[in-house]
């Protein structure tokens, strides 16, 4: 069966799963996220092993500012919700609504990134640089890896919006949207763990 | 087949195998020739596991050879053998028997894992030694005695020796095969291990973890002496350091060697402590002193010569070590020879037998 069998005809209800290519893409992506889980799991382990070694740098309890991190968390959680709305619109073949929700999603993602950049800038001012201590290195690596994932997601979804404009919603583009939504939820879940393990546990001590 | 007859035949085979193993290797180096209770425990476990495993290997080999002879395809044979799916009884047998064998090995394993990990660091009877591994030499600090020495670990027989170990630069591993298994010296953390030396003698120690170009040369010696000798050694080590008699040589020695090295216990340098170096079996861990060791081999040189060669060009013997060669260090040939002689004669004379 070819990828474009339905391209210009009637779009099925689950366009992302209509072709073998689409189903492969979704399965492969879930497997990729399995690998990503292990990746972040290892980063978390390294952070947990090193987080008490602050040397001369500021201690996490005095460094972290929960209100701002909480705001970032809320923004990212909301963006996950809007990406659910986008996929729902996809299932109902409402292309315009889907694009709008996707735009909201990346705007929220950009907001999150902005806060994170501000936060990192602030920490560096406080004397918490990348090379300060084992704690700081592992902190920036873990949170920075997540931030890079968010940035990649924003660019990716942005690119997909462009493709939808050009190619419309087809059995080729639908799996891409669907997969990017799974990705977006994944980085959201990772953030929930970062919020708990890094920030809340850092505050407690 | 009569099972008892098979076992009867196998037993002497296994016993012979064990005998063969126990006769193997140098007394001061081989794990198969244990000279202390720790290595003996490990050797017992090794014999047990080798025995079990030899049994497994024999069974598999026997089946394998039988099958290959009995079931080889004859030329022109086009028959189709019976397509067997499996056999639950057999499959249960070869699941349960290995489990039972593992239990036989697992129980003593757990017992000795905890037994060999006993901590004697609070034990007043045990001798506490801090081992610091450097690229490419060993530092031994007797914390309770206020003594530091290098390359040659002197221990009394009949006491538990509790080691606390760390690495000064990279990871090394402390191993005296005939006395007991190894333990890593990690930079940044300390490990503990105890050993016992029931017999007097010199035992070879090795670094067992890749630590740089001279990893192969990072040998040391562990010398077990009687309790009396050990006490004499301790007081000799603590006695004021003996400097070269010639004032010029003493000056050169102080200016060019003692910047890094130390003699006596007043202060410790960044390089091996040289107190009583004339007693040591080797120079640099690998150049055997023919006038010191009990069994000099062809090619071994006297300590004065070894010291001379070593000081002249240490990089030749241990590349990448931190000691400059004599020319770089500004030592003249005269000074070099005199210092080598002084060091070779720097003996503590603590052993009653005077070996």
């Amino acid at each position, binding site marked *: 069966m070819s990828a474009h069998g339905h*391209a210009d005809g009637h779009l099925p209800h689950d366009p992302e799963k209509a072709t073998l290519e689409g189903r492969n893409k979704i399965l492969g992506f879930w497997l990729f996220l399995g690998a990503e889980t292990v990746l972040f799991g290892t980063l978390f382990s390294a952070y947990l092993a090193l987080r008490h*070694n602050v040397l001369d740098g500021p201690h996490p309890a005095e460094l972290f500012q929960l209100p701002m991190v909480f705001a970032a968390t809320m923004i990212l959680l909301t963006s996950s919700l809007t990406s659910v709305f986008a996929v729902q619109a996809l299932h109902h073949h409402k292309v315009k609504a889907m694009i709008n929700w996707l735009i909201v999603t990346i705007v929220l993602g950009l907001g999150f990134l902005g806060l994170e950049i501000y936060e990192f800038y602030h920490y560096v001012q406080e004397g918490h640089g990348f090379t300060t201590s084992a704690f700081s290195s592992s902190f920036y690596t873990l949170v920075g890896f997540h931030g890079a994932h968010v940035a990649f997601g924003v660019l990716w979804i942005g690119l997909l919006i462009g493709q939808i404009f050009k190619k419309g919603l087809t059995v080729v583009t639908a799996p891409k949207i669907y997969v990017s939504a799974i990705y977006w939820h994944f980085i959201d879940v990772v953030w929930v763990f970062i919020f708990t393990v890094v920030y809340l546990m850092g505050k407690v001590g | 087949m009569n099972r008892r007859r098979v076992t009867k035949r196998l037993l002497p085979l296994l016993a012979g195998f064990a005998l063969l193993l126990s006769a193997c290797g140098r007394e001061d180096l081989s794990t198969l020739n244990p000279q202390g209770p720790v290595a003996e425990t490990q050797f017992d*476990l090794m014999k047990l596991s080798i025995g079990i495993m030899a049994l497994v290997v024999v069974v598999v080999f026997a089946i394998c050879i039988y099958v290959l002879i009995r079931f080889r395809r004859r030329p022109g044979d086009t028959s189709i053998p019976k397509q067997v799916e499996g056999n639950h009884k057999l499959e249960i047998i070869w699941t349960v028997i290995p489990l039972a064998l593992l239990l036989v090995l697992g129980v003593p394993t757990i017992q000795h894992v905890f037994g060999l990990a006993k901590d004697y660091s609070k034990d007043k009877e045990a001798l506490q030694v801090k081992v610091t591994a450097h690229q490419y030499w060993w530092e031994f600090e007797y914390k309770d005695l206020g003594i530091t020495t290098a390359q040659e670990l002197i221990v009394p027989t009949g006491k538990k020796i509790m080691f606390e170990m760390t690495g000064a630069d990279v990871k090394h591993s402390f191993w005296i095969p005939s006395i007991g298994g190894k333990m890593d010296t990690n930079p940044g953390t300390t490990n503990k291990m105890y050993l016992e030396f029931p017999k007097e003698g010199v035992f070879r120690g090795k670094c*067992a973890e890749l630590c740089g170009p001279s*990893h192969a040369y990072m040998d040391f010696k562990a010398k077990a002496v009687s309790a009396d000798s050990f006490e004499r050694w301790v007081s000799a080590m603590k006695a004021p350091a003996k400097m070269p008699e010639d004032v010029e040589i003493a000056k050169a020695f102080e200016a060019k060697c003692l910047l890094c090295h130390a003699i006596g216990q007043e202060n410790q340098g960044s390089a091996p402590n040289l107190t009583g170096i004339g007693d040591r079996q080797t120079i640099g861990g690998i150049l055997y002193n023919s006038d010191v060791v009990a069994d000099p081999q062809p090619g071994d040189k006297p300590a004065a010569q070894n010291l001379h060669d070593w000081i002249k060009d240490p990089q030749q013997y241990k590349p990448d070590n931190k000691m400059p060669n004599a020319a770089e260090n500004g030592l003249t040939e005269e000074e070099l020879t005199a210092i080598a002689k002084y060091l070779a004669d720097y003996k503590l004379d603590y052993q009653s037998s005077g070996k």
Partner: protein
Amino acid sequence: MAAHAHTVKRYKGLMDWLTTVDHKKIGILYLIAGFFFFLIGGLEAILIRIQLARPMQNVVGEETFNQLLTMHGTTMIFLAAMPMLFALMNAVIPLQIGARDVAFPFLNSLGFWTFFFGGVLLNLSWFAGAVPDAGWTAYATLSGPTYNPGHGIDYYVIGLQIAGIGTLLGGINFMATIINMRAPGLSFMRLPMFTWAIFITSALIVFAFPVLTVGLVALMFDRLFQANFFEPGTGGNSVLWEHIFWVFGHPEVYILILPAFGVISDVVSTFSRKRLFGYSSMVFATVLIAFLGFMVWAHHMFTTGLGPVANGLFSIATMLIAVPTGVKIFNWLFTLWGGSIRFTTASMFAIGFIPTFVMGGVTGVMLASAPADFQYHDSYFVVAHFHYVIVGGLIFGIFAGLHYWWPKMFGRMLNEGLGKLTFWTFFIGFHLTFFVQHFLGLLGMPRRVATYLPYQGFDTMNLISTIGAFLMGIGTIVFLINVFTTWAKPRNATGDAWEDGRTLEWSIPSPPPEYNFKQTPLVRGYDAWWKEKMEGKTEMIPAEPVGSIHMPSPSILPLIMSIGLFIAGFGFMYNQLIVAGIGLAITFGCMLLRSVFDDHGFHIEPEDQDKGVHV
């Protein structure tokens, strides 16, 4: 957008190989590259053995020796063994499951090229004069910036990182392929054992390689950006590296050996004309080995000082692996039992594997006993053990698989006389090299030593070991001669080249046409092809009518993406961030192109389907 009539440019010659997304051709590329690195790694091994032939030799200096042992290990594991396994996976898996290709042909090609350029980057270190020298395990702090300031370890870190991307992609690809692309009727419990082994291996890759990725990133940050992960002076923890490395490293051992188990299962079953004994217990054992493989990493660290509780637990967990492994060994023996065993090169390697691997396995159980391991650890005993497992297990398995599937891959039978000569020289050479090393370790010889003092009882056995190594080298050369001489001859392999083939790949021509199966076969049981043959049929029952076959288009992008990463790697290494940026821009630019321009592929119409098919 027009639905059909895509004109896809089809390349010939070199461009065909650079742009191919056909799993069979990618398999051949993996084989060529993997075997090339195998020769390099072998040459390094020979140099190591020459240096150690006599005590206190100085054939290569101590520094070169450390570089040789590091590159030998790294090359053999990441650049020789794994690619040769990927070669077999690519050549065989889609055929065994009745598929026309893998799930992601583009990623398959990308995986090959990233592996290749990662490997090339790592080996360019020889020309740059800065070679990794901290062992394939690269323990901190010996691999850290303080004690290893040159660029050697950078080549290791970045080379493996790039090659690792390829491996991870391969793992995902084959998992998805086996889950989604099986022919109708081919349920999981009807999969050939090799396919099962690759499925489990792929899962191990997916869950183990990211750990290495993080470890390498952390080491790279330590080295290039002054981070403090493993530097004790600034709060880092060198033991953390050991944990990360072995959490990856132990599953890696099973990533290597499970495919060999799969090969042996298929070969033994074929050449004894018998169904694999205890198929379901074989599957279960494989799954169990993989599962346990993730919880035994600390047995590489018994002497690191984790304490008796950890050592005890990891001892027992490690011993448990012996049980499913033993199940496999006996299942193979009882597959042979009652069979009609034909001795070909492939079956001889497979049968030679069984006792050899048992020897490696039992020393593994011995090593599992932590108190005894205090003596074995980092001695030549360990060197002997893992070479018995990796050479006696994996390389024998690869040789068995290559001789077995060679006609399927290339349409030519390898010469059996030369093949048997390969087997005997390699087999005898192998045991000569490594059997004595057990005793060297027990007599007190540490591993990774550049030389050893005389009068320690090491001399004779080291010399024997060196002679054995040369014999293995001769075996490898004979194999190469076999390949080149048969290459010059016309294609002579029939579809069912060994006549006793049992699985789907033997139901189609050798080599298979581009689309593998003209009609997707219907699978009616385990050993699908054997089942049809036994019922007197000469081909599989088709599950679909003859029709137009859709194929993915070739693409040059994977090659360019990998070159981008290669350039970026050098940029990071030599602190030329602009170069690094350009490299990454090339890679991401290609990703962008791939996303924007859809690949519609092309169709092979029924009238063109028999062109160039060798029957």
